[in-house]
C-alpha cells in the first residue's frame, strides 16, 4: 500500500520495490486487489516494443502485403510502440478488411519485435511506457522474474537505489553468522590437516615440531575461537581409542557440558549456542572410527537436525532477544540428544 499517490513516481517506486525487502508483500497486495487473473504470461511480452523498420517493410512486401497497405502504414515507420498501442494505430490506419487480413501477419512478424530489457538494466523502469508498468502491476508474479533480471544483470542504477535500514541489519546479522561459520570451518580444516600430516611428520621430530609451531602461530587472517573449548569443540572430543558404546556415551557426556554454564543475557546465550553449533560442525566432519558405518550415518543425520535446531534458535534469539526461551529450547534439545546417544550406546 505504499504505492505513490503521484503517478510520475510509479516507475521509480516499483524499481525500489524490486530491490527491496518487501517485494513478496507487494505481490500479496496486488494479488489481493486484482486476484490471480494474469493475462500476460511472459516478461518478454511486457518488455517488448513494436517497430515497423525498413527491414520489416521489405519482409512484409515479400510476404505479399500490397503496396497500398504498406503506404498506409508509413506514419508508423521507425517509431516504437507497446503492443496495444501498435495494434490500435494499425487499426486506425487500415480499413476493416485490411486489418482483418494483415494485422496478425504484421504483429507476428519476428523482425518487428524489440525489447526494453537492456534499457531497463541501464536506466530503470522509467524507460517503460505507462501501459507496461500497468501490465506488471496486473501480472504481479512476473515481478519476480523482472527482479531476478535486474538483480543479476542490472547496472549502477539498480545498485544505487536506496534500501531501508532493516535490510542492512539483516546483512550485518548474516555477516556475523557467516564469519563464525568460516572460523569453525577453518578450524576443522586445520585439524584435518594435522591428522593427515602428523603420521608422516612424526618420522622426523624436527619437522613435526616446526609444523606444530607453525600451526599454532601462523596468522591465517580469519577470526579464531578464543574461548575455552567445551563439549564437541575440545581437541580430544572424538577419541579413537574407545569402543562403540563408550564412544557414544562420551559424546553424550560432552553434549551435557552445555549445562555447565547458564547464560543470562542474549549476547552470552548467542555465544554459547554458537559454540555448541560449532561443536556440531566438528562432529559432522569427524571420522568416528569407533562407530559402525550405520552408527555414523545415524549420528550425522541426527547432528544435522540438531544443527538446524540450533540455527533456528539463534535466529529467534536474535529476533526476539528472549534469552530464557532460547536456553530452554537448547536445554530440551540437549536432553533429547543425550538420551538418544545413551540409548544408542546401550543398544
Amino acid at each position, binding site marked *: *500500500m505504499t*504505492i505513490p*499517490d503521484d*503517478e510520475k513516481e*510509479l516507475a521509480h517506486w516499483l524499481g525500489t520495490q*524490486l*530491490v*527491496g*525487502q*518487501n*517485494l*513478496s*508483500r507487494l*505481490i*500479496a*497486495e*496486488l*494479488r*489481493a*486487489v*486484482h486476484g490471480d487473473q494474469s493475462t500476460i504470461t511472459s516478461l518478454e511480452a511486457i518488455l517488448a516494443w513494436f517497430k515497423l523498420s525498413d527491414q520489416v517493410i521489405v519482409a512484409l512486401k515479400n510476404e505479399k502485403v500490397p503496396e497500398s497497405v504498406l503506404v498506409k502504414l508509413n506514419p508508423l515507420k521507425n517509431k516504437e510502440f507497446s503492443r496495444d498501442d501498435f495494434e490500435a494505430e494499425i487499426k486506425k490506419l487500415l480499413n476493416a478488411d485490411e486489418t482483418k487480413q494483415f494485422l496478425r501477419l504484421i504483429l507476428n512478424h519476428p523482425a518487428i519485435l524489440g525489447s526494453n530489457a537492456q534499457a531497463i538494466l541501464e536506466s530503470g523502469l522509467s524507460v517503460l511506457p*505507462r501501459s507496461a*508498468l*500497468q501490465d*506488471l*502491476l*496486473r501480472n504481479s*508474479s512476473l515481478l*519476480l*522474474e523482472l*527482479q*531476478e533480471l535486474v*538483480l*543479476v544483470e542490472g547496472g549502477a542504477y539498480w*545498485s544505487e537505489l536506496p*534500501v531501508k535500514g*532493516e*535490510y542492512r541489519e*539483516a*546483512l550485518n*546479522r*548474516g*555477516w556475523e*553468522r*557467516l*564469519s563464525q*561459520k*568460516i572460523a569453525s*570451518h577453518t578450524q576443522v580444516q586445520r585439524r584435518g590437516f594435522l591428522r593427515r600430516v602428523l603420521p608422516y611428520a612424526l618420522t622426523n621430530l624436527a619437522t613435526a615440531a616446526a609444523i606444530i609451531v607453525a600451526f599454532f602461530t601462523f596468522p591465517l587472517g580469519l577470526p579464531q575461537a578464543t574461548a575455552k573449548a567445551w563439549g564437541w569443540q575440545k581437541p580430544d572430543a572424538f577419541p579413537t581409542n574407545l569402543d562403540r558404546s563408550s564412544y557414544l556415551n562420551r559424546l553424550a557426556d560432552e553434549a551435557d557440558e552445555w549445562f555447565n554454564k547458564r547464560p543470562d543475557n542474549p549476547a552470552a546465550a548467542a555465544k554459547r549456542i554458537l559454540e555448541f553449533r560449532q561443536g556440531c560442525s566438528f562432529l559432522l566432519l569427524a571420522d568416528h572410527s569407533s562407530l559402525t558405518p550405520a552408527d555414523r550415518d545415524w549420528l550425522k543425520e541426527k547432528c544435522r537436525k540438531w544443527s538446524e535446531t540450533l*540455527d*533456528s534458535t539463534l*535466529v529467534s534469539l536474535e*529476533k526476539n532477544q528472549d534469552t530464557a526461551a532460547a536456553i530452554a529450547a537448547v536445554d530440551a534439545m540437549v536432553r533429547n540428544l543425550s538420551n538418544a546417544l545413551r540409548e544408542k550406546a546401550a543398544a
Partner: protein
Amino acid sequence: MDIEVAYREHGQALLAYFCARVQQVDAEDLLQIVWIAAHKRPDSLVGIDLRRWLFRVAHNALVSFLIRNPGGGVIPLGEVDPPLPPQPDDGERIAALRACIEKLSKEFRKVVQGRLRGESSKVIATQLGIDAAKVDKQFYMAKKELMKCPGANEP
C-alpha cells in the same frame, strides 16, 4: 577473493532475491548457504562473473529448500521449476487483505483497484465521474484504512 568484500557487494541483491521468495528467516539461512559455498571454493571464483555464479548457487539452494519445504515458497518460480503452492502465511495475508478491501465502500474499492493497476487519478476520476482531487483523497483515506488491516505492516 575477499569474502567480506564480495559479501558487502552482492549480499544485498541475494537477500532481496530470497526475501521475495521465502520468509525472511529462511532467506537469511539460504544466504548463509550461498556464502559458505563461495567460501569453500575461493580460487575457482577468481576471474568469473561472480554475481552470476552466486545467483546460480542461490537458485539451486532455493530449489532444494522448496523441495524440502513444499509449503515454504511464496510463489512458483516459473516453468523450469517444480510447481509450488503459495506460502500459507501469504495466503492468509492475501485473504485478510481481500476481506479488508471488501469492507471499503464501492467507490473507495474502485479507486484502490485503479491505483494498484497503475492508473492515474485522472483516468480513475473519468471512470467514476468524480474529480481527480477526490480520487487522491479517497485513495489516501482507503490506504489509511487498509494499513490497519492484519498483516499489512508485516514484512
